[in-house]
C-alpha cells in the first residue's frame, strides 16, 4: 500500500461523514466561486479590447444635467481622440414600469455610434436602413431575443423624464461582446419630441487612439471645459460603470465580508470533521508509531487526508458554482449577471483556498495526534 492510497482510504473510512463534510464544503465553495466571479467582473475585468479604448464624458455635477452638443466638435480636436458620439439617456417605459420590462434607451447619432462602439457588430444593410429612418432604432441582440423583436417591428416608448412617447421601428439588431440591454434611436427624432433638449446631450462616448491614451484624453477633455459654464467629468468606460456599482453601496465590503464568512465557516466544518475522525483513531496512531512512523510522518498523513477531502470538495463546489453562475447569467431577468462566467483563474484560486482550508483545519488535531504517547494511545478505548 502506497502512502497515497493509505491517505485516500483513511479519508473515506467513514463514508457518510466524509461525504457530508464534502457536501458542506462544496456548497460553501460554490458560493465563494460565485462571489469571486462577481468581484472579478466588477473590479478586475476590463471588458473587450475596444472597450478599454473608450471614455465617457458627462456633466461634472451629475448625470441629470446635459452638455451642449457643440462639445462633440471640441472633443474631437483633443489629441488622441478618434471618434465622438453623443448619447442621451431617454429612460422611457416599455409596456409598463415593471422591472423586467426595463432596459436602457439612448438617443444618439446613427452616423457616429458604430464608429465609436467598434465592437458592436451590425449588418451593413441594417445600419444603412437605420441611418435613413429618423424614427428607426437599433437594439441589442439579447434584448431583441428577450422581447421577441424582429427587424421591422414597431414599438412605443413612454417617456418618464420628458413628456414624449417616441414610436420607433426596429431597423437593426446588433451584437455586442457583452450584452448591453440597450436600444439606440436617432437624436433628431428625440430633439423634435423634446424641444427643451435641442442641441443638448447627456453624455458623449469617445474612442481614443489606444488604451494607453485614455487617462491623457480624459484629463485633456476635462481641462478644455474647465472654465466653461458646463464642466465635464470624463472617465474610462470601466470607471463609469463602476460608479453605478458603487451606487449599490459598499459592494466591495459586502463581497469581502461574505467571502470571509464562507471561508471561516468552511474552516470550522473541516476542522470539526478532522477532530472527530482523528480522535477516533487515537489507537491507530499509536500503532503507526509503533511501526516506526515518526511524529512528522503522522502529522503529514493526517494533514494530507484533510487536504484530499477539501480539494475533492473544492472541485465539486467549483463545478456547482460554475453551474450556478451559468444559470444566473443565462436567466433573461438577470441583467445584473449578464455575460459573467467563471474563469480559470477564479477556479484555481478557489481550489487553492480549499486546500489551505483543509490544511489549516487539520493542523491542530493532527498535531495533537502526532504528540500521542504510544502506551497511552494503545490503551485508549474511545
Amino acid at each position, binding site marked *: 500500500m502506497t502512502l497515497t492510497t493509505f491517505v485516500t482510504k483513511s479519508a473515506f473510512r467513514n463514508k457518510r461523514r466524509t461525504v457530508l463534510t464534502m457536501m458542506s464544503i462544496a456548497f460553501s465553495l460554490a458560493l465563494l466561486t*460565485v462571489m469571486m466571479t462577481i468581484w472579478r467582473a466588477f473590479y478586475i475585468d476590463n471588458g473587450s479590447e475596444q472597450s478599454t479604448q473608450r471614455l465617457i464624458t458627462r456633466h461634472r455635477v451629475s448625470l441629470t444635467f446635459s452638455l451642449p452638443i457643440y462639445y462633440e466638435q471640441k472633443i474631437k480636436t483633443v489629441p488622441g481622440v478618434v471618434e465622438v458620439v453623443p448619447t442621451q439617456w431617454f429612460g422611457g417605459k416599455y409596456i409598463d414600469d415593471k422591472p423586467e420590462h426595463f432596459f436602457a434607451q439612448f438617443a444618439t447619432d446613427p452616423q457616429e455610434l458604430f464608429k465609436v462602439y467598434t465592437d458592436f457588430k451590425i449588418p451593413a444593410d441594417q445600419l444603412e436602413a437605420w441611418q435613413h429612418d429618423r424614427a428607426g432604432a437599433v437594439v441589442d441582440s439579447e434584448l431583441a431575443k428577450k422581447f421577441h423583436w424582429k427587424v421591422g417591428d414597431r414599438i412605443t416608448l413612454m417617456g418618464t423624464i420628458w413628456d414624449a412617447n417616441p414610436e420607433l421601428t426596429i431597423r437593426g439588431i446588433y451584437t455586442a461582446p457583452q450584452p448591453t440591454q440597450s436600444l439606440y434611436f436617432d437624436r433628431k427624432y428625440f430633439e423634435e419630441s423634446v424641444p427643451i433638449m435641442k442641441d443638448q446631450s447627456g453624455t458623449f462616448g469617445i474612442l481614443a487612439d489606444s488604451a494607453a491614451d485614455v487617462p491623457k484624453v480624459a484629463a485633456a477633455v476635462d481641462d478644455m471645459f474647465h472654465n466653461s459654464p458646463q464642466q465635464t467629468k470624463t472617465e474610462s468606460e470601466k470607471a463609469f460603470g463602476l460608479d453605478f456599482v*458603487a451606487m449599490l453601496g459598499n459592494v466591495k465590503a459586502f463581497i469581502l465580508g461574505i467571502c470571509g464568512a464562507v471561508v471561516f465557516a468552511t474552516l470550522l466544518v473541516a476542522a*470539526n470533521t478532522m477532530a472527530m475522525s482523528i480522535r477516533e483513531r487515537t489507537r491507530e496512531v499509536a500503532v503507526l508509531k509503533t511501526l516506526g512512523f515518526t511524529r512528522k510522518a503522522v502529522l503529514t498523513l493526517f494533514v494530507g487526508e484533510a487536504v484530499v477531502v477539501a480539494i475533492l470538495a473544492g472541485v465539486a463546489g467549483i463545478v456547482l458554482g460554475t453551474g450556478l453562475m451559468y444559470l444566473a447569467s443565462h436567466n433573461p431577468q438577470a441583467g445584473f449577471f449578464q455575460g459573467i462566467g467563471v474563469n480559470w483563474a477564479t477556479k484555481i484560486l478557489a481550489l487553492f483556498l480549499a486546500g489551505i482550508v483543509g490544511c489549516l483545519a487539520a493542523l491542530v488535531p493532527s498535531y495533537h495526534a502526532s504528540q500521542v504517547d504510544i502506551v497511552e494511545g494503545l490503551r485508549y478505548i474511545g
Partner: protein
Amino acid sequence: MAIPISYNIRNLKLRKGLTIMTALGIALTVTTVVFLMALLAGLKQAFVSSGDPLNVLVLRKGSTAELSGGFDANLFPTLKNLPGIAKDKNGEPMVSGEWVVVIVLPRRDGTGEVNVTVRGMMEDGLEMRQLPADKPKVNLVEGRWFRSGQREVVVSSSIHRRFANTNVGDTIQFGKGPWQVVGIFDAGGSAYESEVWGDVNQMASDFDRQGAFASAYLRATDAASANALKNAVSDDQRLKLDGMLETDYYAKQTSSGGPIKVVGYMVGFIMGIGSIFAAMNTMYAAVAYRSREIATLRVIGFSKPSILTSFVFESLVLSLLGAMVGIILMLPFNGMSTGTSNAVTFSEVVFALRMTPTVILYAFIFALVMGFFGGLAPAWHAARQNILTALRG
C-alpha cells in the same frame, strides 16, 4: 413517553468542542443572513418611514419621480386654491413648490464623490415637514433653518457625517457658486436623511429652471381630504398633473433594494444548505457515540417516535445556540449606516443596518429550519437502529 429535555442538553454539554464548532458554523451562516436582512430592513425603513400620509405630492403626468418632473409655475395658484389644504402660520394654504437636483459631493473619508439629492423648497415646505407638532418628521439638531432668498442650506445629520465641508459655517459648491451650511437636521432614518435643503427660488435660478417646479407638496387637513386632494389633482384635465400620497411615492422606491435582496436570498440559501450538512455530520456523530445508550433507552421502553423527537430536538437546540451567537455577533453592526443609490433618483440613499424584531425572528426561523433538516436524518437513523446489534456494539 417523551425523553426529558435535560438529557439532550447534557449531551450537548458533554461534547463541548463539537457543539461549539457546529454552533459557530451555524452562527456564521446566521450572521451573514442577518446582515443582509438588516440591510434590507434599514433600506425599507428609510423609504417607508419617509413621507407623511397627509402630504400630497404633485408631479407632471407620466413622470414617476421628482427628478424627472417639471411643470409650469403658472399652475401653482390653481393648486393652492384646491379645497382641503391646511393653513400655514400666515393663514395661507400650506403648499410648497419644489425642485430636486442631484449634485456630487466628496466623501469625508476621501473615497470619491457621490451623488446627493438637493431639494429646494418654500417656507411652507419646511413647516409641513415639521408636522405633526408633537412628533415632527424632522428636527433641527444644530444651527438654524435656511432663510428664503439666501444662499443657505441645511444638511441632514447623516450627510453631515459622511461628506466633507458639511459642518455648520462651511460652504459647499454647487450650481453657480458657494452655499453656506447654516444647520443640520435629523430626519429619523427617513429618505430625507439623504438630502440637502435650500430655498427653491435660489436653487431654480442656479440651475436655470425659473418659471417651473419639479414637484409641489400640498398639506391636507386630514386623511380624507388628502385622498380627495390627490384625486382632485389627478382628475383635473387642464392641469395635466398627477397627485399621490407622499407615503405611496416612497413605498414604491423600496425596489432599490432589489439586487441586495437577490444576493441575500442566494447567499442565505447556499450557506444554509452547507450548514445543514455540517449539522447533519455533528448529529450523526452524536448518534454514533451514543448508539448503545439509545438502544438502552429503547429497552427501557422509550418508543421510536420519542427517540426521533429527542434527537431532532437536540439538533434544534444546537441551531438555536448558533442563531443566538450569530445574532450577538451582528449586534455591534446594528445602526451602522451605509449608502446605496436610489434607482429612481440616481442619488445616494443613506440608511442604517436595522436588526428589527422581524429580522431576529427570521434569523431564528432560518436557524431552526437548518437544525430541523440537519437533525432529521440522523434522528431517523437513531430511532431505527437494531436494538440488539447496538447493545452489543
